[in-house]
């Protein structure tokens, strides 16, 4: 608490644990996406070859993907933010409606610590990651499940991978467009002006 009072220049947004969780998750997701591209896009597959090695890396990175979040659960700050991400208030409905109508005025985009878009993204990507993990395991350990399931798992894995790729590109694109938001994830604190403008209902 005293930390915040001592640092008038910035507002504390993420704890070191949270940033560590984000960084390792992002790295693992990056490995999954890159290896997936090398297995899937014919031109890259031709360039890289080494199919067995690439598959191994992909499998282990995928298996490790949920670990940072699970470890992060030990942190009170991380659990508190999961709570913020989970709970939707009336202002989130307002935010979503504005987003649907492409209304970019700050007044029509009320948000707490996380805006409604960030909340939806977080919940969806968490679920999607577990679906990828589940279908991935079915493709990996084919003898653990009825074997007809493998084709079905491949089907879901492929299409969801494509969807995740697009959504992830959106996530990264939005981060690229907002340096202060990136600074929050990099250093842990953001400027007061940014917090007031982007997250007016946030009371850090």
């Amino acid at each position, binding site marked *: 608490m005293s930390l915040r009072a001592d640092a008038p220049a910035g507002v504390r947004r993420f704890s070191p644990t949270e940033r560590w969780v984000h960084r390792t998750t992002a790295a693992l997701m990056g490995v999954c996406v890159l290896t997936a591209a090398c297995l899937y896009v014919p031109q890259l597959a031709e360039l890289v070859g080494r199919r067995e090695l690439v598959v191994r890396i992909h499998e282990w990175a995928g298996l490790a993907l949920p670990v940072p979040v699970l470890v992060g659960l030990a942190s009170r700050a991380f659990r508190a933010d999961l709570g913020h991400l989970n709970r939707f208030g009336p202002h989130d409905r307002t935010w979503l409606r504005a987003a649907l109508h492409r209304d970019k005025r700050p007044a029509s985009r009320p948000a707490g610590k996380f805006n409604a878009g960030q909340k939806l993204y977080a*919940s969806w990507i*968490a*679920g999607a990651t577990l679906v990828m993990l589940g279908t991935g395991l079915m493709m990996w350990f084919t003898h653990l499940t009825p074997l007809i399931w493998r084709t079905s798992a491949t089907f879901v894995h492929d299409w969801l991978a494509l969807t995740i790729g697009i959504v992830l590109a959106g996530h990264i694109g939005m981060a690229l467009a907002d340096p202060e938001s990136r600074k929050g994830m990099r250093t842990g604190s953001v400027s007061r002006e940014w917090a007031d403008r982007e997250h007016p209902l946030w009371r850090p």
Partner: protein
Amino acid sequence: MNEDVHEGVNDEQPPQRGTPVGRRVFLGTLGLGALGVVAAPRLQRGLEDFLGGAADKDPTGLTGLLPNGGGFRYYSVASSVPRKNADSYRLTIDGLVDHPTTYTLADLKALPQTRLVRDVQCVTGWRVPDTPFEGVRLSRLLDTAKVHPTAKAIRFTCFDGTYTESLTLDQARRADVLVALRMQDKDLGHSHGGPVRLYVAPMYFYKSAKWLSGITVTDEVRPGYWEERGYDVDAWVGRSNGRDDEPTS
């Protein structure tokens, strides 16, 4: 979460915890994923029909990148594969034969060609319908080399330096097993295993070794590359690898 309640007391926001929409989205995504697995066979058939049709009219080729967007997928187990052309390509037949032979591409082209049109079925699920393959019957090459009576099987090697395959002698003598020079009525390109690949019509496509360079007659089946990694040696489509695809030949 108690802090929220206290903080909520000030101005704009009512002091409530809100609906757990995040949890619902999370669980909903999981549920949809499970539903997708259950409904996959039906969904996949519909999509294949749709995308197969779309791919025919798609000049960009982007549909080929969609899952099951029709067409082949490139798998190579080696880090890089040398390119061979009509000058540099050689196919050797050795092992338990009276007349070990080396064929050039021109030699193979000069032999009677057989054209087969069957579906291609990969063990990972994708299927390409009605794909023409053309080449020399493997049985013809074996007869020319005069296989010893003690021989039981064939080992195939490839000029990628890594991949291997196997067939029993009976399987290898089937009329629908070719040393293929052409696919889809075009000379086999490098990425499809050209200039020469094996084509084993009734089996999963991993049996159809790309970049074929060696045919060795042996006295027992030596499992090939993927077979040492858990795939079935007798890879009949629909009757192996725990799959029930419609047979291709």
